[in-house]
């Protein structure tokens, strides 16, 4: 759609300004963005849990006990299930399943997206038309039903398999965005100059085009990880994938199967949901940070609402605020 690529082009212009590679201040601007920083911290926490989870879990998540359906206590921080299993350990151990699937799906989908999108944007012509048609088809075909059908028919849909299925159905969005960006980049003078110089295509792509797409690829990756995590948990919840591997979705599956809701065992399904929400939120925050980095107009630098209100400044389009504050003396 024409407006899409126009907006994307403009964003890229702004991104070029914002991402001047030589300025050290710019590099850390991203890190100083509080939203992105918060997101990264939360993500880091979950990654840590994914790595050390199984070691620090107080109980074996499968182990039954006599403490059936207990609310949270010091013994069982998140309470117990209907057969006495410790919910806290289940969540801890399940973190690894979730993070692995998320990252694998994210990496695979992003790689496919980059390959197809950048190639389509760069080579143009029939190759472009063909690849675009391919990605558009995958975009329109509803993902979840397809994943449900495929995953439901595989005999043992373990975490990795699910990750690959998610990646195979979810790469198209990133590919489309990357194609649009590559197309507009390709028209730029510095690319034309490189081609005129006789540089090989793959060199141009890796050395000139890809670095400019970093922000978008990063944003796409983060988004895909979020989507993959959500999909996997959803699939586990409805019981399509194997319930022998622990992840947050399987916790919820058992909770639902045992009618935890109706029994008032809120501790069984609340923690899992909160964890998902936190993880998802951290990814979205990181994406906000990337968004604001790429498009400085979205930044709220200097627009601290309270400070402005105190000075009685209301930034508006078409009505420049007028204040009569002390100004510098000309002499």
């Amino acid at each position: 759609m024409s407006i899409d690529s126009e907006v994307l082009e403009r964003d890229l212009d702004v991104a070029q300004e914002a991402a001047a590679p030589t300025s050290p201040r710019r590099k850390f601007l991203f890190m100083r963005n509080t939203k992105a920083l918060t997101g990264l911290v939360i993500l880091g926490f979950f990654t840590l849990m994914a790595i050390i989870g199984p070691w620090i879990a107080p109980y074996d998540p499968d182990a039954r006990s006599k403490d059936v359906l207990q609310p949270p206590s010091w013994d069982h921080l998140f309470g117990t299930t209907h057969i006495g299993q410790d919910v806290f350990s289940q969540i801890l151990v399940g973190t690894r399943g979730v993070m692995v699937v998320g990252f694998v799906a994210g990496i695979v989908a992003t790689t496919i997206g980059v390959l197809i999108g950048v190639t389509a944007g760069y080579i143009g012509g029939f190759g472009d038309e063909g690849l675009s048609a391919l990605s558009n088809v995958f975009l329109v075909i509803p993902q979840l039903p397809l994943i449900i059908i495929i995953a439901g028919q595989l005999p043992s849909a373990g975490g990795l398999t699910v990750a690959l299925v998610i990646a195979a159905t979810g790469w198209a969005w990133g590919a489309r965005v990357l194609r649009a960006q590559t197309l507009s980049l390709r028209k730029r003078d510095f690319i034309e100059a490189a081609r005129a110089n006789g540089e090989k295509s793959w060199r141009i792509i890796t050395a000139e085009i890809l670095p400019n797409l970093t922000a978008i690829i990063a944003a796409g990756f983060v988004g895909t990880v979020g989507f993959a995590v959500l999909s996997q948990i959803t699939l586990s919840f409805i019981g399509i994938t194997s319930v022998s591997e622990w992840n947050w979705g399987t916790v919820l599956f058992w909770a639902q199967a045992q009618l935890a809701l109706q029994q008032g065992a809120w501790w069984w399904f609340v923690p899992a949901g909160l964890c998902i929400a936190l993880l998802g939120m951290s990814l979205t925050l990181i994406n906000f940070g990337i968004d604001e980095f790429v498009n400085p107009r979205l930044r709220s630098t200097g627009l601290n609402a309270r400070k402005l209100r105190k000075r009685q400044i209301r930034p508006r389009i078409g009505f420049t605020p007028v204040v009569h504050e002390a100004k510098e003396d000309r002499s």
Partner: protein
Amino acid sequence: MRFFVRRIIFYAITLWAAITINFFIPRVMPGDPVQAAIAAGGGTISPDAIPALQALFGIDPTQSLWSQYVDYLQMLAHGDLGTSFTYIGSPVLDVIKQALPWTIGLVGIATIISFVIGTLIGSGIGWRRGTWADSLLPISTFFSAVPYFWLALIAIAIFSVALGWFPSSGSYDRNMVPNLSWDFIGSVIYYGTLPALTIVISSISGWILGMRNMMVTVSSEDYVTVAQAKGISERRVLFGYSARNAILPQVSSFALSLGFIVGGTLIMEIVFSYQGIGFLLFNAVNAKDYPLMQGCFLVITIAVLAANILADFVYGALDPRTRQEG
């Protein structure tokens, strides 16, 4: 014009792709679907039905792949989606026809409400920057990160189990027979409120954020300043100049997210046991009812395609530049 022609060609190709994927699914999946079908039928399907089943799946060993494909296409052209295993004897098309209106009603209404309200709020927030409204954003990201079904579970826990305001499952009162009386319609609305509400709450933040970002970008365009310079009222500038242009990418992203919206609704139906097509698909997968599975997938895809076409028309009507694709 060229714009529309291109889109229609694209949709035709996508439809063909969906049909073909549908055709291949049982063929590439491990296991023998015919045997699975007979097993699922539990003795009600006689071995005489094997050739018919094989034709349905296109796994007739006596025919070449191509002719099986053609057979399958012919079946589809006649509106024959096969016969369901679980709803014994019923044509898949009929089963689906019963379930489809429920889904379209639920998705349609909830999505439209979410889109409209979200876009309005987003325009307001995007127009007046530097206000307290900006801090709403992190809160809404939390809600958008919560998976649909979990929100549904919480909603059920609070409104259904604890407060007893709404029912926790079903699409209408089981004691009633579907008819067009006010009673029945009232019951439908009553049962549909909680599912629809959950959909709206979890998806609205996406629209708010998208519209806000577009408003910020569009408001910094020259023509908005020109509009202010002309002394036009604030409301007209907001709606006519800013929002009117910002909504274009919003419509695009709406079209693109339709597949995702459908996915979310499917989950909603499963959680609430709402008898739409998603619930049907879920049960079909679990029961290994291949004809129903394939039928559902095809119909869902066609519905998404149709919605996409509609969204494209809306975009074309809103953006005069598309009428002169250059």
